[in-house]
């Protein structure tokens, strides 16, 4: 027996405006598809430049998401739970990369962590380690732009957690760290996952901070977005092919994760 469904008619103003909203996202995809050299696609996508960029992009974006998780969740906890002087300023600074042009972020990273940077210079002098123009530079640039998405999502979730459960755990003898690990974290797990996906997606698409801070070299720092940018001025078919790869990878991951992770109650 099939359950009868009541057909809901959407009010027309919502339908019209909502459809326009969707069109903003669908139309560029159609544009991309119409320009795609479908017959040469395989050959273009299998080229060295594209394969190198895809590998690098996947590796750096996953790494950046992992680092964002490791550092971002504790940061979100501090921002949500600990009253410290200047907390509002720290929160504003943490979310700044969401507003700032990524190029500005990249330049700022260079001033801090570059070879002549405030921290970069002593590190380089002592160890010879250098972030710019290296894979780690790409990862750092990605973390810089991506982590705020995780922090904002997780902090919001932490503020919504009913503190009584944590209090109950404390009366049972659990230390604050145990409470965080065994009670708080499982309670906000859906939001942590959502924040992780957002951060990963942002890292995958990152361009400005990467090109400014990490430079652009095939196989080392040239991620998919950088490869698209270079190819746009050189060979449009390649540019379109790379864009298509980027769209396909992102869409596949977002669809997969959204169904599995976001549908049950992440408060985004």
């Amino acid at each position, binding site marked *: 027996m099939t359950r009868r469904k009541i057909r809901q008619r959407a009010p027309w103003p919502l339908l019209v405006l909502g459809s326009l909203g969707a069109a903003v996202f669908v139309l560029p995809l159609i544009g991309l598809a119409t320009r795609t050299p479908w017959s040469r696609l395989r050959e273009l996508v299998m080229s060295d430049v594209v394969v190198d960029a895809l590998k690098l992009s996947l590796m750096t974006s996953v790494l950046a998401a992992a680092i964002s998780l490791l550092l971002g969740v504790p940061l979100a906890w501090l921002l949500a739970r600990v009253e410290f002087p200047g907390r509002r300023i720290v929160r504003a600074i943490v979310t700044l990369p969401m507003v700032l042009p990524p190029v500005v972020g990249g330049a700022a990273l260079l001033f801090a962590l570059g070879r002549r940077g405030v921290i970069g210079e002593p590190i380089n002098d002592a160890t010879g380690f250098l972030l710019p123009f290296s894979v780690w530079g790409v990862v750092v640039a990605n973390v810089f732009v991506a982590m705020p998405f995780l922090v904002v999502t997780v902090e919001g979730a932490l503020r919504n957690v009913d503190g*009584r459960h944590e*209090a*109950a755990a404390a009366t049972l003898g659990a230390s604050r760290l145990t409470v965080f690990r065994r009670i708080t974290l499982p309670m906000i797990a859906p939001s942590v996952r959502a924040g992780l996906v957002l951060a990963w997606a942002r890292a995958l698409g990152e361009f400005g901070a990467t090109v400014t801070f990490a430079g652009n070299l095939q196989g080392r720092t040239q991620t998919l977005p950088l490869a698209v940018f270079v190819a746009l001025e050189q060979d449009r078919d390649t540019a379109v092919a790379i864009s298509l790869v980027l769209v396909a990878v992102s869409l596949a991951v977002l669809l997969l994760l959204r169904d599995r992770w976001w549908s049950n109650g992440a408060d985004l």
Partner: protein
Amino acid sequence: MNGLDAHLVVQLAGGFYLDVAFSIAPGETLALLGPNGAGKSTAVDVLAGLTPLDDGHVVLNNRVLDAPADDVFVVAEQRRIGVVFQDYLLFDHLSVLENVMFGPLALGERKPQARAMANELLERLDMQGLSSRTPPQLSGGQAQRVALARALATQPDLLLLDEALAALDVTTRGTLRRVLAQHLSDFSGPRLLITHDPTDAFLLADRIAIVEDGSLSQVGSAEDIRRRPATPYVAALAGTNLLVGTNRAGFLTLDHHGHDLQTADTSIDGPVLITVHPTAIALHRKQPSGSPRNTWQTRVVSVEPLGDTTRITLGDPLPLGVDITPGATAALNLHEGAAVWASVKATEITVTPAAVNVKSGRN
């Protein structure tokens, strides 16, 4: 001294203070009884260490847990106070067994020992079959037992029950009251029962402390409180006539009194708690018409003016409290020893299922 010695002073929202002092001996159950908003939940928070005191002290088994004057404050996780919260606050992402194991593990117990301990407690509470379920799959009564098991698993120095029965439906409440009574007596430390329900207080506590507007208006045994209510609120609370008996299709046989009553509620058969509100009983000089079963002749034992009302206490066959206006008292010429007729409508007699082993004889 062993046991709990508490003097709680906390500034409450709305500008008034909670200022109550009480002590509980090991093996004793004290009920903190009061209306909602009287500061009872604040008392839970300060005892458990979730909110600091503004003044006063909490001393448990000679261990100072909170004393602002001496700048002492022991955090919740080091207090060894087991709390059964009003809404249980079970951890939904853990199984029943893991919920009960949580405390022992947090206190450094090894996993096998913690599991054994949790299993034993769940078995004692008749919950062993449900240990792999998660809290959302439990009924209210089952969740309450898990909350109790979880609190007991830490082997606390004080057991704190915050409105432990309030969230349950009437039928479950009766059963759980029995379970609670049994486990309270199994627990050897001091026990504090926080409630707004006089029935719970009268049936489960050795002593009752009544909180009104942030301070204690009366402390004593159920008997003291019933006999000499200190305020109208206590009078109203204490006056709630509570009888124990058996219901058979609306026909009530009382355990301790030689008179039967008729109730309109035929839904519950078997042992019941019977409550009759003091304003629901009417007094007459002459025999009134109506159902003979709910009409009886008796004598006035005492007449106590309590502001707007007068509390009349009746003697055998049913020792009930009756609240009437001073005007009616005068009109009926009621005085100690006066012969009167009492009557109550069958619809005014409410019954709730009673468990067999409740402390009886308190009415």
